[in-house]
């Protein structure tokens, strides 16, 4: 097991041990292992249908694994619901953007603060002091975040009216608004043109430098992965076929044959 990239002293942000997932007779993920340290920037690649998104769905609590264990900061997440996993510090984006289309940009950020609202139904009806305070704080933080991401001018727009690249950015900003320890990016460059992709690379690097977060991303654009990641894991048919630094992956025969097809046969 190569776990060299994990800093030895701290508990890994994410540990996955012997994870397997079966849907009916189909094995989507087999014996998956990984450990991500703080401030890592790791990649997960593989051909279409290799099970990459399934791994993310398992980590974000959307599926319950058939076997194996997932731990966030040392705590197992078995039986937790996605919103509880998010509260533990896992945020993610989606392949196809999943913003709330009929809510303003500001509300998209604010609603994502549900895990730490600190008030419930009766407070919201009575507009208690707690309510006023928490709403004010959340709004302020959301505004700050939009400011930092240079999205503040879209504050009262609906996401559908924004350019595609900006929507991606907003979705990433929304994910970061839950103060994650681990940020899962599922094909952030999908559907972007080459200019947008350059912006995205800068954005992710900036996030990596600014926020205290370990990033794990799925991406098909190899140039993005090669440029950003310090460690890449390759899976095919649910099984890990290679892992290592971008250079190692680039030259790895199993990766080449998985992507280009095995010519020797």
């Amino acid at each position, binding site marked *: 097991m190569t776990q060299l990239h994990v800093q030895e002293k701290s508990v890994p942000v994410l540990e996955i041990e012997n994870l397997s997932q079966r849907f009916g007779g189909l094995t989507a993920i087999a014996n998956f292992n990984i450990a991500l340290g703080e401030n890592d920037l790791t990649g997960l690649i593989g051909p279409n249908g290799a099970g990459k998104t399934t791994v993310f769905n398992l980590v*974000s609590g*959307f599926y319950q694994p058939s076997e194996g264990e997932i731990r966030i900061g040392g705590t197992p997440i078995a039986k937790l*619901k*996605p*919103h509880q996993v*998010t*509260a533990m510090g896992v*945020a*993610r984006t*989606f392949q196809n953007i*999943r*913003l*709330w*289309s*009929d*809510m303003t940009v500001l*509300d998209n950020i*604010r*609603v*994502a*603060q*549900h*895990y730490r*609202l600190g*008030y*419930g*139904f009766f*407070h*919201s*009806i009575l*507009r208690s002091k707690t*309510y006023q305070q928490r*709403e004010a704080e*959340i709004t302020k933080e959301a505004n700050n975040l939009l400011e930092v991401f240079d999205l503040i001018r879209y504050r009262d727009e609906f996401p559908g009216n924004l350019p595609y690249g900006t929507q991606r950015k907003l979705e990433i900003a*929304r*994910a970061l608004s*839950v103060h994650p320890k681990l940020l899962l990016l599922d094909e952030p460059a999908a559907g972007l043109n080459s200019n947008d992709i350059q912006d995205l690379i800068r954005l992710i690097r900036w996030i990596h430098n600014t926020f205290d977060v370990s990033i794990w991303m799925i991406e098909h654009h190899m140039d993005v992965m090669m440029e950003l990641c310090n460690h890449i894991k390759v899976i095919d048919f649910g099984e890990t076929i290679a892992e290592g630094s971008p250079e190692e992956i680039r030259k790895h025969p199993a990766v080449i044959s998985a992507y280009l097809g095995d010519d020797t046969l």
Partner: protein
Amino acid sequence: MLRRYSVHMFLALLGFVLVYLAYNELVNLYILSILMFMGVNIILSASLNLVNGYMGEFSCGHAGFMCVGAYVSSMLGVLLFAKDKVFGLPLLSPEFALYAFPVLIFAGGVAAAFAGLLVAIPSYKTRGDYLAIITIAANYIIISGIENISYIGGSRGFMGMKRLIRSMEDVVDLPWMLIWVFLFTIFSIWILRRYLSSTFGKGVSAICQDEVAAEIMSVNTNKIKTITFMLSSGLAGIAGGLFAYILGYVNPGSFNILKSTEVLVMVYLGGMGSLSGSVLSAIFFTVLLEVLRPLQIIKWVVIPLLLIILMQFRPEGIMGNRELGDIFPWLKRFYRFK
């Protein structure tokens, strides 16, 4: 400062005028009862809009919850404050009815809210048309459940609530029913607006627009669904309680699927996700029902026909998902709609 309270003042004035007119018998009982049914319909359509419009579910059993509220508040009222052949002598002095009335209505609302769990719990796992069936089934189960309890009159119904209203009017001579309907209508809209405009309540819209994203972005969807269904059915229960006391008589047949359909029509006529749309369409629909009353049975041909034609021209309802303030921006000076 004046602007800030303008809506409160407007409502107070409206309430005062209504009570004044009713007290001096400047409007007849018929108009008065229409006004009261208007209030009941506003509560019903606004509360169903919470589930069907804001949360994007398709509940078609709203009348079932109304029925629970109607029966619980009526039975409690008659048990406590009126002489009845089922429940015997009143347990408390009828004079207290005046003060206890809102409690009775609330009790009906709370009971209906718990009946709402019948739909809320299945909604964790299923949504859309399958949930729609569950709501229809819930409506039927509630109705035929009550029909089979002969102790409270079965399908013949339950009465005796008029005595309660009379004893309220004996204590202080005011049109109490009108006052309570007015207050509860405002209360319902107030509670819905506050819920929906809080970040907590916006979780409802998040579920509607993308449930997966809501769950992943830390919205406790099951909790929000439970609260929303309970709030919606609870308000329906309040409407049911008022309805029962206005009529002075309830029977399970008045809460059948046809009643649910009426409420559905009001919601979609007003526009999904528009509280002011729901209020307007409830007023419009109540008036329409009364205006067309002379047509007798043809009324129920004309009204659906009108609605079909209306929907061909405005397939998103009167207001779409906008509020009054989006259409008449000057209104925003007085009132924030969202």
